Structure formats: structure tokens, C-alpha cells
């Protein structure tokens, strides 16, 4: 099928989507009219309400006729004068792919590379091209792999398929969104989603995204039915467009393998999912570590630390590269599964170019350190940029742990506060335990259904691990408040607490503070609790002057 014919088919299919939406709206209106004519009482009002709820996503879907734009996020635009070597590389690969070089390059904070073109007249005329290039991607790839990434993106233009397939993409994105909307509502995911967003909001601002507003109306079956109707249409649509889209991906892969070398392309395909997962982990566990304490890593390290993480966990990453995703990211994704793409590239004959350009891609930048620092200003929100800067990563860890512990609210804190009516403190807890109130207090903990149904010893054994974790946190918070705790920072593993009296690094001389603490916790949470050992560990409370 020719390119023009494909575009025409896409147009017809897209119109079908509108027709479907109009028919559904008409059906809903018809139901309302019938109800008002023959029905009476509150049932009519309820029916009317339900039809309005159902109509909302349909109408929304009809007006969402824009391909997602600007989702590459904020970044820094670099000119040829800023980054001559990057521009030269970009132009060279474009020439090799036989297409026009982009008009602008923007460096972003994500593990992503994309070339976008804003076509005019429904894709009949070319428009300006932009290259979005994630700095974390440069951090993790070699120069040959960067060429492969760029060549793949250009590969989409060589068949002219980006302009002509814009409509297809548009329709696919739209259908996917409407179906997702219905499913979200049907699953009653809204409340859970909101809670999750609130928790993640601190991190979201750091990543420069706006918090999404969540609609909380929703009720089961009718939503699912609507989703099913759209789902059927989507299947039809996908059948018509997906094989072409996936074929285009494979073709772009071949272009990249020709330009950057077979091995570099295969390595890139393996590398990107690994980098993407590692970067998510890095953002959650390292870069945004201090946000709760209103602290940022040293300047340039918010994105710069990623390279250190990759270096420290090289072995772990090597294992991850062996496990390729077998499934596409979503049924509406135009990309075939990575495993299939790797298989096709590795089936090509060897071209003897395995050792080309193995230097880090970040080195093509004129001054990587300056770029990493400038990227923070562009990507982070003003509020976050106003936070304090830690002197180094270990200091950031200490500050964030101290802040986390001082504001920690364990289930035990809540149960204790509910019982005493006072803010929960360790001293108050030990008093309750000494007065024989531990197991009564335990009944107020949030516990699993099995634990709640249990009695006697079985109940106590269910509650004990929960109590243990909470009490340990409370004791560590107490140590931390007296500046008795330090933390061992590591790029290759989780942070480890160093208790008071524990020698740095090796602590196996004589009594082990960790064991002493555990024994004291166990004694305080026994069937017949004894807090003496725990009290002995705690320094005397500072006397009010």
C-alpha cells in the first residue's frame, strides 16, 4: 500500500472514531429522553446522572485530538556554538541516513531521545525538526551507541513515514487514552491514584512535572462496558495500523545498524531499558533522597550522580542486560518488543565494527559538568532549586535520614497517640509497656485480616514483627535526635545505619551494638515485656535547664 493510501485509510479510521463517539452520545441522550418520558421518581435522576458521567470521557476523548506534544519536557536548547561536536555528530548521522538534520537540539533530563517534526497541512508539507536528547542517556551510552540512537530516529524520516503516519499515531494515541480513562474509572483506581500522587508529589516537582489533577467520580460496570466498546474499535484500528508501525520500527533499526554498526545497535537496544530502569531507581533512591529534608545534592550532582551509580553497579547492570522485555510496553505501543528487535539485529551478518567509538557519549559535550549544572536549573522547579545544597552525598544521606526519622510516623506512633491522646514519644511508649499495656496497644495497630482474626499467641506472633519494625524506628529516631547515628553511603547497595558505639566499617570487636539493640527490642516486645535493657541503651534525657 502506498504512503498516500495509508494516510487516507488513517483519515477514514480516525473519522470512524468520531462517528462511534457521536453514536454513543446519541444513545445516551436517547436513554435520557426515554427515561424522562416513561420513568418517574429518583430513578430517573439517577439514570440521568449516570449517563452524564458516561458522556464526560466520550466528549473529552473527542476533543483530545492532539498528538502528545512537548512531552519531552523542559531542557536546555544548545546552539552550534555551544556544542560544536554534538552538532557535528548529529549532522553526520543525518547525512548518513539521508535525511535533513534537525533545526534545534534540546538537552533534557530523561532517558529518551526523539526527533519531532511539526508537519503542516495534515502531514503533506514538512515542518521544523527538533531533536530531544536526554542527558542521562548520554551518561549511560558510548558514542557509537549514541550514533545508533540518532540513526534510528532519523530512520523514521527516510521513508517519509513520520509525516504520513502522523494521523495514524494520532488516532492510536487517542483511542488508547479514552480506553485508559474508562478503565481507570471502572477500576476505582482514582482514590489509590490520588494517594500515590500525594506521596510522589515531592518527587514529581523535582522532575519538573506538574501534578496531574485526578477526577474522582467513578462506578464500575458501565464504565467497563464503554471501555469494551472503544476497545473493540481500537482492535480494528490497531490491526489496520500496527503492523505498518512495527514494520517502520524494524526498518529504522536496520538503518541504525547500517550507520552505527550492528553490534553498537544491538548493544543500544539492550542498554536502553536497563538505563531507563536504573534512572528511575536513581531518581527515587538517590537524586531525590533529600527532598523531604529540603536538601539537594551538590550542584551538578542531581544528574551527575547517575554516572557514579552506573559505574558502581556495573555487574548488576550486566545481569539486567541479559533479561530483555518480551512484551511491548502497552498494546497501543507502536514499538515491537525489545527482545524481537534485538533478535533481528543480531541476526545480521557481523560487520567487524564492534570496537568503534567506545568513549562515553557524555564526552561529546564541550563541558559536561557545566551542562549537568545548567540542566538542573532548567528542569527542577524554582521551589526545589531554593532548597539547601548538601556538601556531598554522605551528608545528604545523613540529613535526609535524620529528617525522615524525626518525622517518622510508624503504625505504633499512631496507635500510641490514639491511646494516650498525646503526641507519641518513646518515653510514653515504654511507660505503656511497663504498665502491661503493650498487647492491648497492639490491637490498635493496622494489621492484616489474618492477624486481626487471630487470638492469643497467634495474634502476638502476627503483631510482633510490626511492633518490632516500629519500635526499632522509634529507637533509631531517639538516637538520631541525640546525634548518635551515622549512615554509610554507598552507590552499590542500600544505606546502612551505624549505631552508637559501632566502629566504622568493621565492628566485630567484642559486643556488637546491632545484636545488643535487637536483644533489647525483643525483650521489650516479649509476651511478658521487659524494657530494662532498652532503657539502658538510651542516653539519659537532656534535663530542661
Amino acid at each position, binding site marked *: 500500500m502506498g504512503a498516500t493510501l495509508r494516510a487516507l*485509510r488513517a483519515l477514514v479510521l480516525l473519522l470512524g472514531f468520531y*462517528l462511534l463517539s457521536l453514536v454513543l452520545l446519541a444513545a445516551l441522550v436517547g436513554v435520557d429522553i426515554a427515561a424522562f418520558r416513561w420513568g418517574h421518581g429518583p430513578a430517573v435522576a439517577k439514570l440521568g446522572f449516570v449517563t452524564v458521567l458516561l458522556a464526560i470521557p466520550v466528549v473529552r476523548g473527542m476533543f483530545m485530538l492532539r498528538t502528545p506534544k512537548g512531552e519531552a519536557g523542559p531542557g536546555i536548547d544548545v546552539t552550534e556554538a555551544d556544542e560544536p561536536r554534538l552538532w557535528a555528530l548529529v549532522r553526520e548521522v543525518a547525512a548518513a541516513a539521508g535525511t535533513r538534520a534537525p533545526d534545534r537540539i534540546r538537552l533534557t533530563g530523561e532517558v529518551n531521545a526523539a526527533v519531532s517534526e511539526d508537519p503542516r497541512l495534515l502531514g503533506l508539507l514538512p515542518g521544523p525538526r527538533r531533536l530531544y536528547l536526554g542527558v542521562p542517556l548520554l551518561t549511560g551510552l558510548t558514542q557509537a551507541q549514541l550514533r545508533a540512537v540518532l540513526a534510528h530516529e532519523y530512520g523514521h524520516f527516510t521513508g517519509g513515514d513520520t509525516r504520513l503516519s502522523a494521523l495514524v499515531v494520532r488516532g492510536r494515541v487517542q483511542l488508547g487514552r479514552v480506553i485508559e480513562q474508562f478503565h481507570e474509572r471502572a477500576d476505582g483506581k482514582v482514590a489509590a491514584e490520588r494517594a500515590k500522587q500525594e506521596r510522589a508529589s515531592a518527587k514529581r516537582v523535582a522532575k519538573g512535572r506538574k501534578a496531574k489533577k485526578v477526577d474522582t467520580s467513578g462506578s464500575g*460496570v458501565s464504565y467497563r*462496558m464503554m471501555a469494551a466498546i472503544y476497545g473493540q474499535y481500537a482492535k480494528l484500528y490497531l490491526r489496520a495500523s500496527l503492523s505498518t508501525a512495527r514494520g517502520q520500527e524494524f526498518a529504522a533499526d536496520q538503518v541504525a545498524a547500517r550507520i552505527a554498526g550492528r553490534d553498537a545497535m544491538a548493544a543500544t537496544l539492550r542498554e536502553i531499558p536497563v538505563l531507563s530502569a536504573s534512572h528511575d531507581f536513581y531518581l527515587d533512591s538517590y537524586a531525590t533522597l533529600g527532598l523531604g529534608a529540603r536538601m539537594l545534592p551538590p550542584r551538578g550532582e542531581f544528574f551527575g550522580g547517575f554516572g557514579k551509580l552506573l559505574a558502581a553497579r556495573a555487574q548488576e547492570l550486566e545481569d539486567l542486560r541479559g533479561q530483555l522485555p518480551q512484551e511491548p510496553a502497552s498494546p497501543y505501543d507502536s514499538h515491537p518488543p525489545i527482545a524481537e528487535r534485538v533478535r533481528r539485529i543480531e541476526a545480521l551478518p557481523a560487520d567487524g565494527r564492534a570496537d568503534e567509538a567506545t568513549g562515553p557519549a557524555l564526552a561529546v559535550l564541550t563541558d559536561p559538568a557545566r551542562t549537568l549544572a545548567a540542566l538542573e536549573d532548567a528542569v527542577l522547579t524554582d521551589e526545589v532549586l531554593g532548597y539547601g545544597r548538601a556538601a556531598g552525598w554522605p551528608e545528604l544521606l545523613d540529613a535526609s535520614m535524620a529528617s525522615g526519622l524525626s518525622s517518622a510516623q510508624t503504625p505504633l506512633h499512631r496507635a500510641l497517640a490514639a491511646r494516650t491522646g498525646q503526641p507519641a514519644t518513646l518515653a510514653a511508649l515504654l511507660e505503656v509497656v511497663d504498665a502491661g499495656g503493650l498487647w492491648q496497644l497492639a490491637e490498635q495497630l493496622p494489621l*492484616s485480616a489474618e492477624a486481626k482474626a*487471630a487470638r492469643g*499467641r497467634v495474634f502476638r506472633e502476627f503483631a510482633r514483627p510490626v511492633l518490632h519494625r516500629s519500635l526499632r524506628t522509634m529507637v533509631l529516631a531517639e538516637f538520631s535526635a541525640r546525634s548518635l547515628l551515622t549512615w554509610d553511603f554507598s552507590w552499590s547497595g542500600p544505606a546502612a545505619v551505624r549505631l552508637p558505639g559501632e566502629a566504622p566499617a568493621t565492628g566485630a570487636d567484642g559486643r556488637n551494638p546491632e545484636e545488643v539493640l535487637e536483644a533489647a527490642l525483643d525483650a521489650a516486645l516479649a509476651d511478658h515485656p521487659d524494657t530494662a535493657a532498652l532503657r539502658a541503651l538510651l542516653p539519659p534525657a537532656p534535663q530542661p535547664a
Partner: protein
Amino acid sequence: MTVLLWILAVLALPLVIAAIWFTGVFVKELFSPSPPAPDATALAAERLGLLPAERQDTEHAAPPPAAWSAALAAARDGDWEPAAELLRANGRDWERRSSIAAELGTLAAEEDGWLLAWESARPGDPDAAVVRAQGTVYLAWELRGAKQAQYTSREQFEGFHRMLTAAREEIARAAELNPEDPTPYIVEIWVGLGLGYPGAEMDKLWAEITSRAPYHFGAHYAALQYWCAKWRGSKQQAFAFAERAAGRAPLGSLLTALPLIAHFEHDETTDVAADSTPEMLALVDAGLADAAACAASDPDRPGLAQLRHLLAYYLHLQDRHEAALEQFRLVDGHVDALPWSYRGDGAASYYCRVRNETVGAVQAAADAA
């Protein structure tokens, strides 16, 4: 042209889906479960003096001796001395010692204040030690619950493994305090089941047990569970173990129950053909002879009621209803035994359903004659 067809199909789709959905809702609303019809066989069973489901004891397979019940009641009230006396007086009757320890261990898994008092009053008492070990193992299984692994939460498994690990030390201590007693090793089989002891370690444990009590019913029951496919063995291993044990044991040792249990544990058929083969008929006949011999020499022996429950069940499935009813009458009132106990809360009603069917079949045969 095909494009037009697609659009037509799209227009038809919502109608079809809506119609199906409304039909589904309608049908669902229309149907409500009809109340069960009054059962003639239940009345007939009652006339024979058999108990209804709500009066069946689901904690025991047979009525416990009065002295045991008294000791348990006293322990429940905090007085451990009758329990201590019960175990001391029982001496070297290992079958009964294991059963008493199981009863007391069940209680200790609920609350153990009385046991703590016993332990502090008589430190180093082997009887208290064996109850302690048994209690911790039962506590572990309570934490796990009785569901299959996929329906058991991580929290449950963690508690289960923590308690089983703790129990190993207590078992070793109990064994040390009374070296002749097989009970601690039998308790350890249930630890091995949960922690997944390798077969070689199980064999070692088994040697410790059989050198002390070669035909112990509870030990064989536990070991057979270990060798079952659902735990650490296979159908083949379970059958081999059961047949070897039953073949070697003297008449009246009750181990003829083992091949029946192995068959029951691995039976995945839904009809009764596999339960009425000549081999199964022979196994049930051997069980009947075994039970009769045991009843003649020691009618209260632990395990006899379990064998009778299995015999009643298989006699029923083999359409030997007269003989089945005879077994049902001997055990009626206590139903904590295979095959009923796997039904959990439904054990008593399952038992009564099968028993009532037997009663009905016997009556029908009498009416026809």
C-alpha cells in the same frame, strides 16, 4: 468497501454489547438460589441415633478419655499439675504420649501461661519440654493457616518459618531430656514438612523414630504427609512408603490406614471407579481386619477412629453400605479425621451428607428385600 463494512460493524457493536449486558443483568436478577429440600435420609439417620452436623465434635476423631479432658480443662484454667501427672503416669506408652502432647500442645499454641508456670516450677521436666516443642510447631501452623501456598500471605509464611526455626531448638532439648521418647522426632517431621528438609535428613529422622517405636501411628501419618506429592515427595514415594509400612506391620497396628490415605491424597478423579478396584477392595478388607484386631486388644488406641472414618468413606464409595454404616455408628459424634477434615468448617456437614446417603442406601436395600 472494506472500510465501509468496518464502520457498519462499529455501529452494530455497541448495540450487541448493550444487549448482551442487559440480558446478563436480567438473568442474574432473576435467579436466586432455591432453598434446599428437607432431607428424608437425615431424619432416618436421626432415628438410628446418629447426630446432626451441628452436634458433631470437629476437634477430635474420637472421644478423648475423661482424664485427658480433665487435665486440659485444668490447664486452661492455669493449673498445670494434672497435665504433668497425666504425662508422668502414661510413662512409655509412646502412642498415647504423642497424643497427649498433641492435645496439650494445641492448648499451648493458644495461650501458654500454664506451661510457663510448669516450666518454671520444674525446670528440666522432659514432659513440659515435649509439650513446649509441640506447642511451638502448632503455633507455626496456626500462623501459616491451612490454605495452599498461593493463598497464603508473605506475613503468614514469615511467621511460619520463624516459629518452625525456633521449634528446632526446643525439639532438640525435649529429645535430650527424654532420649527414649520418639515424640520430639515425630514433632520434627512437621518442621521438616514446613522447612523442606531434604529426603536424606527425613530418612535420618525416620531412623530415630522407628528405632524407638516401629509402628507408631502418628509418626507414620506425619511421614506419609511428608512423602506426599503436595509436600516434599511424589505420588510414587507416598505409595511406596505406605505399602511398605502396611506390609510390615502386625495386625492391629492400624497402619493399613496408610495405603488408603496415600490413595486419598493423590486421587484426582471425580468418579468412583478408582475407589472400587480389586486392589482398593482388598485394602479396605485389610483395614477392616486390622481395625477389628485393634478393637479386640485396645479399643481406645489413638488412630483407630481415623482408620474407621476412612473405612466408612471407602465402604460407602464401594457401595458396601451395610459395612459402611457399621463403621459410621462406631465413630459418630467426632469428625476431626480424614477425609472430612480437609473441608475445614464444612467437615461436619460433609461427613453427615456421606453418612446420610449411606443410611438412605441401607434403607432402600431393606425396603427392596
